[in-house]
């Protein structure tokens, strides 16, 4: 299926590129991107059958970015392929087309056709309303890595705000760890048995509309999504060999959301809220919180930001389970404002019903013009048996990423 998808996309791109090439070749194709080596260290041995028992998990990432502009930048083709090689997890070894699109910009409107990424939201601890792109969940557990989503995105930018109309002809399935990989539950997810609400399966089109504006200190977004849920409901099944597996099912849903940020002096007040139908009873969810920054806490001008957010989700057991149901997030961000753009973000998410506790620290800095280094430490404290983190309770890890940008 992936191959089919890529083929149809590639032919689309072929046409766009041919068009681009037949236009003026005065400007050249611009190449940038990065190559990175990741090293994850798991101090504890794996808990589940089939997982690699190596404590060190190296992997390699390549993401070149090609851009070609013409018409004085009013037209642009972008191509961003992605590849990860993970010797321990065959599923995590995967490629994707993060972007492959043509953008046309005009005065007051634009159109983008092809695979792209769209982000919605304001909160830090949970990207609740960000629904356009499927999560590339095999990459990381923070949900911030996304698969390229094929779309036609028509945008108006006017004095009254911006309006985007998005049609998505093809659905991308979520990625899940394979048998050898860490950060999975005891059973693997068998994506060969995926089922859908819609008879058209992944070809059932999705539609979204978003209006965003700002009024003084307030930034406001309203959106509606009609289509296939990006979250899978997992049901117990068996694979060809008779082993128990999770079988993903994707429902058709309607989701209406609002996101608001008030930026008042050192304070950022944030709210993301949504209501969704199509997965059991209609339910609501929100993440709300604040960020306060102490500017210039050091002689050299470093900033210290304090974050607090509350996550609520009212879904019932017919909907895909989430960990962000009744959780408090507390965090701090230390930004050095130095020439190497060093910053450190640390936080804890605490579920005040089942007491599951998850600690996280991220830091990154630039080594020189081309190299950066990032570190990520994830530690699970208490994990309740009914929490989605239960299967990964022994997967504390430290990840170091060394990146070479070009």
């Amino acid at each position: 299926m992936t191959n089919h998808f890529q083929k149809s996309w590639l032919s689309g791109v072929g046409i766009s590129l041919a068009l681009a090439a037949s236009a003026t070749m005065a400007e050249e194709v611009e190449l940038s991107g990065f190559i990175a080596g990741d090293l994850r260290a798991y101090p504890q041995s794996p808990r589940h059958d089939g997982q690699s028992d190596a404590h060190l998990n190296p992997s390699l990432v390549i993401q070149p970015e090609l851009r070609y502009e013409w018409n004085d930048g009013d037209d642009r083709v972008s191509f961003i392929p992605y590849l990860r090689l993970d010797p321990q997890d065959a599923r995590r070894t995967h490629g994707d087309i993060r972007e492959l699109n043509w953008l046309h910009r005009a005065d007051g409107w634009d159109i983008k056709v092809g695979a792209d990424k769209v982000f919605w939201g304001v909160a830090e601890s949970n990207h609740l309303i960000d629904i356009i792109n499927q999560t590339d969940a095999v990459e990381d557990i923070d949900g911030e890595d996304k698969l390229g989503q094929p779309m036609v995105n028509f945008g108006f930018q006017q004095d009254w705000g911006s309006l985007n109309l998005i049609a998505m002809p093809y659905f991308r399935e979520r990625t899940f760890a394979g048998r050898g990989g860490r950060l999975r539950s005891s059973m693997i997810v068998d994506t060969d048995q995926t089922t859908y609400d819609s008879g058209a399966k992944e070809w059932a089109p999705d539609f979204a509309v978003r209006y965003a504006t700002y009024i003084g200190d307030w930034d406001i977004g309203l959106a509606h999504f009609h289509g296939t849920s990006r979250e899978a409901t997992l049901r117990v099944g068996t694979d060809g060999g008779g082993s128990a597996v999770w079988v993903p099912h994707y429902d058709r849903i309607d989701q209406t959301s609002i996101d608001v940020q008030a930026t008042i002096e050192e304070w950022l007040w944030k709210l993301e809220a949504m209501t969704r139908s199509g997965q059991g009873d209609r339910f609501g969810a929100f993440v709300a919180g604040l960020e306060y920054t102490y500017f210039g806490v050091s002689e050299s001008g470093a900033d210290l930001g304090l974050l607090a957010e509350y996550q609520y989700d009212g879904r019932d057991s017919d909907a895909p389970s989430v960990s962000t149901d009744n959780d408090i997030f507390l965090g701090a961000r230390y930004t050095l404002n130095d020439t190497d753009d060093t910053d450190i973000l640390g936080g804890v998410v605490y579920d005040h019903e089942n007491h599951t506790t998850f600690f996280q620290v991220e830091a990154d800095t630039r080594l020189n013009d081309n190299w950066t280094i990032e570190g990520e430490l994830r530690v699970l404290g208490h994990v309740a048996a009914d929490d989605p983190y239960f299967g990964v309770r022994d997967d504390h890890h430290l990840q170091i990423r060394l990146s070479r940008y070009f």
Partner: protein
Amino acid sequence: MKKIILSTVTAAWVAGGVGVGLYAPAALADDAADKGRAIAEEWDRRDLGFGDTKAKLRMVLQNRHGETSEREMYINTLEVPGEGDGDKSLVYFEHPRDIKGTALLSYAHILDPDDQWLYLPKLKRVKRISSTNKSGPFVGSEFAFEDISAQELGKYTYKWLRDEPCGELTCAVLEQTPLYENSGYTKQVTWYDLSEYRQQKVEYYDRKGELLKTLEFRDYQQYLGKYWRADELFMTNHQTGKKTSLVYESYEFQTGLSEGDFRKNTLKRLQ
């Protein structure tokens, strides 16, 4: 009385006179504040109508050991007519590569905090950020946010200190006190040359009243036969020994940029 004298002077300028009239009579000599304000007004007036600019620049950061690192960025500016509000600007980075595509959109205001949005290309996220941090370093350089944001007449009170030679020119030296909140400076001392009313040098005094930084404007060029821009802005931090040079590699005026190029959601289509 003051008002009358001032308006007379202003009328003389509008009638095509240059700043010479300012210094001939003793009329203003007894009022350093009015004299300072009049010089700043002339500096402001001579830049009216620039419309918009597109600039490509290189930032060279130098630490106290002389080690350097570089950034490349583009700055688009849109003049917002009238004295009531500041200009709009869009800065986007080309180098170093790990921050390529990162962009900052600012709507400057005279005394209120600016409206600022940051675009993070990795997440494709546009984030409204607090602009209270006027005195914080801009991308790790010796330029504070308040140094790079739009210089507007109404942001300071002015006091003329003296006239003195500055290189081959003669400069009026003005003490400028920020009126907006959260400035890192108690005052700035600015040198304006009296031939073209360009800022030649600025000294920044920190909250303790001590000399913190000096900004030098080097190699002024005239564009469209009217608007002066320095090829290089050189900032020295006297307290840390660090230096930052902003080198303009190209400058274009009246390129046809409009409001539509400075909207929050147009950030997303930069890259």
